[in-house]
Every structure is written in C-alpha cells, then in structure tokens.
C-alpha cells in the first residue's frame, strides 16, 4: 500500500471512529458531571428519594417520582403501541400485496420523520382537552396523554423492524405449514411470529429505548407534577422532561443532579443496546447451532 492510500485510510478510520468516541465522550461527560450526586448526595437517596426540592434549604434530590413517571408513560406506550405495531407489521408482511405494503410503508416512514414537538403540540391541543372533557381528568395533562403520544412515536420503529423480521422468515416455513393443512393465521401464530420473535423483541426494546428518552412531546402533555402516577388521568413528570425544564436555571448540586439524571438515562440506553446485541447474536447463533 502506498503512502497516500495509507494516509487516506487513516483519515477515514478516524471519521469512522467518531461515533464510538462520541458515545464514550458523552457517557463519560454526563457521568462525570453528575458524579458528586452519586458520591456526596448518595446513590440510594438520589434514586429512591421521593422528594425533589432543589431550592429548599434542606436540599432534596430524589427522583423516584420521575422514574415512576417515566416508567408509567413508557409502559403505557408499549401496551398501546406494541400490539398495534406488531399486527400492522403482520399486515404489511403477510396480508398486503407488495404494492400496498410499499405505499403504506412510505406513509409510516413519514410518521417517523415528523418532529416530536409536532406530536407534543397535537397532544397539547387535541389529546389533553379530549382527556379533560371526555374522561373526567381534572387537568387533561396525564400519563394517558403521554402514553398515547409516545405510542404514536414508537409505532414507526416497531412496525418497520417487526415487518423486516417477518419478511425475513423463509418462505419454506409458510409452504411447509400450508402443506400440512394449516390456515393462514395458524401459520402466522405458530410458525411465523415465533420464527420472527428475536426481531420483534428487538423492535419492542428499541421502541422502549425511544420512549424512555423522548423529551419534548411528553413534557408538553404530562403536566410537570412531581408525584407518583396513581391513575392514568393524573399528571406526572418524566426524567427527561425535568432535565429540559430545569437545566437552564440550575446551579451547583441541582445542576449536577440533572446530569446524574442524564447518566441514569444513558446507562439505561446502553443496557438496551447491550440487550439487543445479545438477542441478535443469540438468534444468529441459534440457526448454526
């Protein structure tokens, strides 16, 4: 290899490494910036404290209500968006003609491209009043509003990845099942969905990751109340929403606590990625075993 080629190759490698470097730098920066909270304030008090009073004389920085809030909207989003997304994927991969499937997929990609603030805005002007007027929620800002908005936002991810997984199931499996006299839905439930399971689980985990990290849309419809979610119709605060709201005017330990919140998120996201990698590797390994 001549010198020019080697030089070019080096530059390209640096560019290709940038993502890895960025992940490392982000993880390090966020954890380092929040570190005093873990050491001085205490991990346990931080994670499991129920009170968030950054301005009080006796400063309280417990994020348990926000963890619960994030958990509630995320579960709500998966419960609503998961089944709808998977069945939509079944429709695209198994029932629709190729042409219909391509057209619908283009629309779903558009759904993925719409900015989160638009979903938040729509939730604010349509969903929140609707929940207030028709479901008897006092404010309308609620776990349910957040869950629905998030469900819509994770749909494209769930649909696309599940549909890809379903399409990757060999045609031979379908033939084999039909030839034994099984009908379409028996084949889908007993052969195709199980065969596509690793991909579908990956889709749900990715949806989970996206839901947990989403900020603006949820912030706009969940009402910023630091309380435990006791009902679908009550307002809550999420970890992300709290960071966005308070980082601008925070200082000292308060700001460090917000970074620590970011660190918690980052660790969850890294775990999610680790999980997905394991699933994919195991699925690939299973075939050659």
């Amino acid at each position, binding site marked *: 290899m001549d010198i*020019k080629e080697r030089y*070019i190759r080096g*530059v*390209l*490698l640096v*560019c*290709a*490494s940038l*993502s*890895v470097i*960025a*992940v490392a*730098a982000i993880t390090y*920066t*966020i954890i380092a910036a929040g570190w005093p909270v873990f050491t001085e304030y205490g991990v346990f008090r931080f994670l499991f404290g129920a009170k968030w009073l950054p301005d009080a004389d006796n400063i309280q920085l417990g994020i348990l209500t926000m963890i619960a809030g994030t958990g509630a909207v995320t579960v709500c989003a998966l419960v609503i968006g998961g*089944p*709808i997304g998977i*069945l*939509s994927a*079944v*429709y695209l991969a198994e*029932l*629709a003609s190729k042409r219909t499937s391509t057209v*619908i997929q*283009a*629309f*779903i*990609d558009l*759904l993925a*491209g*719409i*900015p*989160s*603030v*638009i979903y*938040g*805005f*729509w939730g*604010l*002007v*349509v969903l929140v009043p609707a929940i207030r007027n028709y479901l008897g929620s006092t404010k309308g800002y609620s776990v349910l509003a957040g869950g629905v908005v998030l469900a*819509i936002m994770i*749909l494209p991810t769930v*649909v696309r990845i599940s549909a890809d997984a379903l399409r990757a199931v060999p045609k031979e499996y379908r033939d084999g099942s039909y030839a034994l006299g099984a*009908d*379409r*839905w028996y084949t889908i439930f007993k052969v195709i969905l199980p065969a596509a399971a690793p991909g579908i689980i990956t889709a749900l985990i990715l949806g989970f*990751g996206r839901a947990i*990290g*989403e900020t*603006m849309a949820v912030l*706009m419809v969940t009402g910023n109340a630091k309380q435990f979610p006791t009902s679908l119709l009550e307002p809550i605060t999420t970890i*992300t929403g709290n*960071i*966005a709201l308070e*980082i601008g005017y925070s200082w000292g330990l308060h700001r460090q606590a*917000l*970074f620590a919140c970011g660190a918690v998120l*980052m660790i969850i996201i890294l775990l999610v990625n680790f999980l997905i*990698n394991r699933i994919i590797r195991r699925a690939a390994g299973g075939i050659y075993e």
Partner: protein
Amino acid sequence: MNKLKIWDFITWVCIGLVLAVLLLVIGHVVVSGIRFINLKFIVETTSNAGRSGGIRNVISATIYLTLSALLLAVPVSIAAAIYLQEYARKGRLLNILVSGIETLAGVPSIVFGLFGFNIFVTLLGWSWSLVSGAITLALMGLPILTRTIMEAIRAVPRSYRDASLALGAGQWTTIVRVVLPAAFSGIITGIILSMGRIIGETAAVFLTFGSTLNSISSIFDSGRTMPVHVYILSSESVSIDNAYATATILLVVIIALNGLAYLYQGITKKRG
C-alpha cells in the same frame, strides 16, 4: 373460517389506526394552522415574544443551524461510510465501530443536549450559540447519515469496483471515480432525510442553541428554531395561533423533504 376473518379484521383495524393517526395529526395541525399563514408571517420578524409579527428570524435561525450541522456532519459521515463499507474487514474493529454507530443512534436527544450544554455551552464558554448547537446536532446526525450513506454505497454493484481495480486504478481512485458517483443519488437521498430529522430536533437544540429571538449575525449568537418556537408558544401559552402557524410551516417543510427524497429516489431508480 370465522376466526380467520376476525384476525384479518383486527389487523385491518390496526393498520387503519396507524394511517388514521398520521392523517389526524397532519390534518389537524395543517387545517388549523393554514389560515394564520400569510406572506407577512414569513417575511416579518417576531415581535412581542412571538405574540405578533412573523417568524422570519426563526426560519433563518433554523436554516443556519441545519446547514451548519450538515456542513460538519456530511463530510465526516461520507468518510466514515467509505471506511466501513470499503476498507474495514469483518472482525472485532468493525463490530465495535458499527455498534458505536448503533448506540449513538439510540442516545436520547436530551442526553445530547446535556453533553453539548456541559462541553460547549459551559466548559468552552461558547454559551447558547450557533456553534454549540451545530456541533451537538452534527453529532446527533452522524449515525443516521452514516447508515444511509453506507446503504447507498453498498448498493453499488461489486462489478463496478472490480472493473476499475482490474484497470489498475487504486482503491481510493476507484472509490472517488466510480463508487461515489454511482452512489451519489443514494447519498443525496440520505442527506435530505437526515435534514428533516435535524430540522425537527427540539430538546438538544433547546439546551445548546437556546431560545432567544435574535437574528443570527455570528456563530456565537443564540437563536430559536421552529420546533423550539412551537414548544415555547404552546407550552407557555404565548400564542396558540402562531404555534399552529409555525407548526404547519414546519410540517410542510418536513413532508416536502420526505416527498423530495422519495421522488428523487424514484426518478434515479427509473433512470438507472
């Protein structure tokens, strides 16, 4: 037979819901917002914190930020995609690089925001500014750009490379002269789609570019992009009307970019 019909029906309802949601969201925002939009709204600057006036400064801040971020991210992404697709061999290094991209793609916007806020806004003292926002957004755009460009490069037939290499061209020459031109339309499509993502970004922009209603005159100026404008107008109840109008313009831009990418792909596919 009946059970089959029931499941057919359920899937129909699901896909119908997905499409209905799309139409409901876009339809509601656009139908409500279109009547607040006129030429004045686009060419005048905001006044009274967004209660009146237009959004010219908001639009230009969005354009500045988006183009700066792309300017930083596109060359790096192309280089990264070339390395991963053309140079890297299967093995540990490639696995690490690719999983780095996958992981970065999954990092929440707010975490990028915190990172940019910590490093650029406070540590380097650039405050809320175009440069802080652009670098943060460039990092966010990196994974999606790299992946789409990789796909475009992957779609170039092996035979093109072989033909060029067989003529004695070096690998880099082959890439520059043969592979990149052949992948050009795919790369453009990828850039257009990523542009949509960058324009629509809110949380990270809010934390690094700020939300002041300035007109941008230097890279250290702060500004307010369209998504941030929609957020502030609506959640602080400044002006729901103007939030509708801004959201409509934002949506139209996003849909236009998606359509453009789609059409462009279609045209080049037909030609090639």
